[in-house]
């Protein structure tokens, strides 16, 4: 057990330091993951296999991943600035933390006087670790358990409400949208109907192919502006050549009604 501890402990400390010192947020999150996994290993070494599993599954797998999702949403690229804006914050934080460290080490240092009992007896008495936890959880702590479930429900509902976007403008129904379209046509002459589809050619009918107007020019409305900007628009002249050549090669067959014209 000692060996496990002395392997995991430095890793955890390094992970913690990495969490607070890395400039890129994703690196911090990954350092945290390292810490949590080592923590799970320590749980296992302390005869808490259930917690070992829960730590990996819930904490590292769910909570930390949630962190990563949000990180990706809010900006994963920009490194944080190192410049401290509040005067004296760094110094005072260092002093405070050192003081806290000293105080807590002083207080926990002399806390343990008797030798540790180890979980072996309790585990066998309960018939296994999970059983022991279950007995405690649904026995002595069942009320706390129910409260915790209420807490989870509240948290979920709260998150949903938070995520719910508020409309800033009233939602337009179908009638209002149609009226808006007609009004736009009356004011500026913009086409009230739907936009033209992409062009259909012999060799291509993707959305990158523009349609042709009756006079042979391409219709700007038939292709997305994004594609045009990107330069992904296909050249309709080239596409037309095949058909034009085929028509040029075709012979004209006289029709019975031609002579009358």
């Amino acid at each position, binding site marked *: 057990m000692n060996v496990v501890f002395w392997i995991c402990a430095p890793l955890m400390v390094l992970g913690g330091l990495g969490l607070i010192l890395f400039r890129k947020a994703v690196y911090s999150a990954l350092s945290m993951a390292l810490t949590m996994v080592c923590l799970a290993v320590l749980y296992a070494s302390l005869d808490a296999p259930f917690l070992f599993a829960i730590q990996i599954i819930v904490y590292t797998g769910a909570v930390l991943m949630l962190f990563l999702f949000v990180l990706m949403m809010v900006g994963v690229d920009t490194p944080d600035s190192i410049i401290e804006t509040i005067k004296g914050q760094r110094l*005072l*934080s260092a002093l405070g933390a050192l003081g806290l460290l000293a105080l807590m080490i002083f207080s926990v240092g002399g806390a343990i006087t008797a030798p540790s009992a180890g979980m072996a007896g309790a585990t066998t008495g309960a018939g296994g670790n999970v059983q022991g936890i279950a007995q405690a959880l649904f026995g002595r702590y069942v009320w706390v358990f129910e409260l915790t479930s209420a807490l989870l429900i509240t948290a979920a509902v709260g998150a949903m409400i938070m995520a719910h976007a508020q409309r800033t403008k009233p939602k337009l129904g179908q009638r209002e949208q149609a009226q808006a379209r007609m009004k736009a046509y009356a004011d500026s002459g913009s086409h009230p109907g739907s936009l033209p589809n992409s062009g259909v050619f012999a060799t291509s009918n993707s959305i990158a192919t523009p349609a042709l107007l009756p006079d042979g020019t391409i219709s700007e409305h038939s292709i997305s502006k994004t594609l045009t900007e990107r330069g992904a628009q296909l050249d309709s002249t080239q596409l037309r050549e095949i058909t034009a050549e085929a028509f040029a090669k075709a012979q004209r067959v006289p029709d019975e009604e031609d002579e009358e014209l």
Partner: protein
Amino acid sequence: MIQLEIVDPVAATGLFGYAWLMIALPALGALVLLLFGRWVEKVGPYLAVATITGSFVIAVALFLQLLAAPPESRAVAAHLYTWFSTGSWQLDVGLLVDQLSILFALLITGVGGLIHVYSLGYMAHDARKRRFFGYLNLFVAAMLTLVLADNYLVLFVGWEGVGLASYLLIGFWQHKPSAAAAAKKAFVMNRVGDLGMVLAISAMLAQFGSSAFIDVNHGAATLTGPWVTAIGLLLLLGACGKSAQVPLQAWLLDAMEGPTPVSALIHAATMVTAGVYLVVRSHAIFDLSADARLAVVIVGTVTLLAGAWIGTSKDDIKKVLAGSTMSQIGYMMLAAGIGPAGYAFAIFHLLTHGAFKANMFLGAGSVMHGMNDDVDMRRYGGLAKYLPITFWTFAMGYLAIIGFPLTSGYFSKDHIIEAAFHESALVGTLALLGAGVTAFYMTRLMLMTFGGGKRWADGVHPHESPATMTVPLIVLAALSLVAGAAMNGWIQDWLEPAAGNHPHEVELLPTPIGWLTMLVVAAGVLVGWLVFGRKQIPAVAPQGNPLAVAGRNDLFGDAINDTLVVQPVLGLSRAAVATDAKALDGFVGVITTALGGLSVGGRKVQNGYVRSYALTMVLGVLVVGAVLILGLAA
């Protein structure tokens, strides 16, 4: 050899039971005129004259009763009511009608009545004359309270009342800033004297448990240590304030801003003599303390010379007379300070002075009335022809004041100078010198006003005053002539029980000192004529020698007061204001700035950043943890 023969008053019977009416009538008059005046606008002045006349009648009746009574029962005490009693003190309000107070009552109501009649003419065109008569009545009521009181506390009530009336009347023409300032000055300087009075009364209450004259007179001999001198000096301070003696003399000349009847009544005849009354009434205290008497003598001598000095250099006729008043009251204080030998002479001179000084003030008012209220003697000249009655009555007063043989002033002033010589040669010589200077400046006044050629401005038509003004002048002039001779042989014996004086023999022929006095007076008149009578008096005051400049500036009394009192007090108050503004407010300001700075600093903690709050939380956990964990460990 001090013998205190204290005469205990008898209870009031018969007419004496109505002695309080003397005060009540003018008080009622003042009340009606001041509170309900609008309904009595027309008859107001006559109502005032009526109340004073009523008081005078009662005073005369009481005087006749006292004359008829045997000498040992000439002090009558009428107890009115108990003011308040607390602990071992019982303070009553009562009146004491005795030889001294009845003379004063006659003076106040008599001369006061004549001045009321004079004011009917003098203030005829003033729109606020109803108020004026109300204030005059108020003054008479307060003055009578002062002289008729049987204890120092009620005397003090009257004392304050006359101070109030003086303030109201000096500042009667409120629209003049100089008048308002003069009224304030008089009141404030009187306050300094009042402080002395209050301390003296408190000392009496502390020592005797009562401030009644009886108790003080009986108990004075039992005082130990410095108490007698202390009370005497405090009473002297009060007297100095009220009687405009040095060092509290600066207000009297400014008080001439008031209308002339006010100057005549208050600042010549009655109020300013209240200090002398106080000293004589307190003879039991002064008899026992040679130091207090010496202080009184010094004050009196210095003032009589100072007043005479000022009187020689003023061009304002009223101010010359004011300086003269100051000087004559100095004579009275000198006499009162001499002790039992001089009390009666002080009162004698007070009474005659009341007559002739009121006469001269009213005469000056008559001159002003004819000269469009101009007071500058440099614009008078040669008025004897145009104002005959005024001139002749004024001349009677002039003769009285310089001490022309057989006028009233001659008798009263001579006695004082003789007593002064008995006291000490120095004091006597100074008093004699004062007599000479008095003759000098009064001659100057007469020559500048009535003699010489006319110097008045264009548009001035001097004319004689109406009958309401000239009749009082004639009455007072008559008194100036005969009052002295009438009282000379009688007043000392009359006042002896009340004032504790030792009567002297009075002879028909003047003593050697008397001849010397007459000589000095004649010399003064001669010098005056030589300087002012021969040449034309310049219309503009000449530069004058240093003595004249000093006199013109009131002997720099205002400057001295300013340097000694006003500037230090101003400096003190400015220092207090500066301390308050800088030190106290600054101190408070420092606290607020510190608090503000603290909050500005404290505000920085709340910068809104979550990370700062996280830091604060960590630090807080550190603190709490340290307390808990280390506490548990310990």
